[in-house]
Every structure is written in structure tokens, then in C-alpha cells.
């Protein structure tokens, strides 16, 4: 077991060790490596054409599209398809009801 004096001395030595650290030189090719990296980075092209399309507008657009889809879906459900086909058939004499048989 170490005495407190010895521990204090160890602490002091450790703290003083800071002064014995020598300067380390950077690698000789560091500069070239950095320059090569920074001048080979493809520049990020910031598209200015869509800058007006902010998140708020994006959200509003999405909401509009959803609402239009819901309306369209409801309209399709109330289908008028058969009615239109009947009208068409009647006007061109294709309807079963209006078929006149030549041979009776």
C-alpha cells in the first residue's frame, strides 16, 4: 500500500509529464492529400428552380391531391355509366326494349 505522499508524488509527476511532450510534425504529404480531396469534391449544385416549393407548400399540395382523389372516388361510386349506355342504346335503336322485329 502506497502512502499518501507517494500517491501525491505520482499525481505531481503525471501532471508534470505534460511538459515533456514534444511537438509532432505533420506528415510531409498532408497538404497534397488535403488539396487533392478538396479540389476533387464535386460541387453540390443547389437547384434554384424548386426553392419556392417549401415544405408548407408541399404539404398543401399533398392535401389538395388527397382531397381531389377522395372527391373523384365518391363521384365514380355514384356511377352514371349504365344510364349513359342506355341512352346511347335507345338513341341508336340498340336497346332490347325498342327492338322491332321484322319477322313477327
Amino acid at each position, binding site marked *: *500500500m*502506497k502512502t499518501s505522499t507517494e*500517491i*501525491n508524488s*505520482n*499525481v505531481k*509527476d*503525471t*501532471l508534470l*509529464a*505534460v511538459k*515533456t*511532450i*514534444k*511537438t*509532432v*510534425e*505533420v*506528415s510531409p504529404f*498532408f*497538404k497534397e*492529400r*488535403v*488539396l487533392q*480531396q*478538396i*479540389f476533387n*469534391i464535386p460541387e453540390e449544385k443547389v437547384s434554384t428552380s424548386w426553392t419556392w416549393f417549401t415544405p408548407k407548400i408541399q404539404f398543401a399540395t399533398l392535401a389538395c391531391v388527397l382531397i381531389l382523389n377522395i372527391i373523384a372516388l365518391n363521384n365514380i361510386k355514384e356511377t352514371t355509366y349504365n344510364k349513359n349506355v342506355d341512352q346511347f342504346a335507345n338513341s341508336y335503336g340498340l336497346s332490347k326494349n325498342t327492338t322491332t322485329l321484322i319477322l313477327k
Partner: protein
Amino acid sequence: MTETEFIKQLKLKSENAYHKLLDDFQQKVFGTCISFVPNKEDAEDIAQEVFVEVFNSINGFKGNSKLTTWIYRITTNKCLEFIRKKKAKKRFAFMQSISSNAISLDKTNYFTDMNHPGIILENKELHRTLFKAISNLPESQCVVFTLHKLDGKSYQEIAEITNKSLSSVESVMFRAKINLQKLLKSYYKKEY
């Protein structure tokens, strides 16, 4: 060339300006990096990241501080980011080793392998202990102590880099020294 003109050239991405920037700052930035991260390869990687960040962010530099201060601020942040990531990685690896009952190969709790060419072999153990103790300090104390004691920056420079007042830096440094002594005392008590 004045600093304003130099900054203008940097903003214009002039290759000559970056040559000059690297000539002036590569050793300083690397010196700060190796003070925080005592591993030559890691320190060089961080220093490289610093210059890339300067290149990418120079247009956002408003000139509120000196260019030197701004670069040192980036350097300090990059070093802290690196240390945080490495510490998190270590913690994750430790948790994994517990859950899988595997014995971790790297039993040290320090965030990097010590590889500091400026430390002579006979002092290596002392420095290892010191760096471990510094890494256990609260972040603000670790920054102030490292910049002052290891990187040799003045309190005024540290105050500018950390955006703190001079008295605040002095008080953080005082607490850092006390905490470091406590950490080292408890370490040497446990050792014997």
C-alpha cells in the same frame, strides 16, 4: 494580402489561397488535433476533415471572429465529435461483449490507441494515465485543459475559441486541475 482579401479568395475557392491556408495552418491544426487525440493517424484524419469543413463552410463565415479563431473552433468541435463517436462505439462494443459473453480483445476504456510520436517511451505510461484522466473530465474542462496545457494556447485565445469570458475560462481551468488531481489520486490508490 490582408485577412479580408484572403478570406475573399478562400470564398472564391482560389487554389492559391488554399495552398497558403494549408502552409499557415496545417501544423497548427494538426497540433491541436493530436493534443485532443493522441494518435497520429487519427489526428491527421481529423485535421483533414477540418480543412474540408473550412472549404465547404467558408461562405458562411461572417467575419465576426478572426479566421484563426474560427478554424480552431472547427478543429475543437471536430476533435470532440471524434471522441464522442469513439466513446459511444466503445460503450456499444462493451455492451455487446456483455450480452454475448464474449471477451473483448480491447480491454482498455480509452477511446483510441495511444500513438503519439512526441512521447518518449519511458514516459509513455505516465502519459497514458494522464490522457485517460483528461478524457474523464467534463467536456468543457477537457477542452480548456487540453487547449492550454497540451496545445499551449493562452487563456485569451481559449476564451475566443470557446466563446467564453476570460474569467470563465480561468474558473473552468481551476476546476479541471482539481478534478484531474482527484481522478489521478483515485487511480493511483486503486493501483496499489
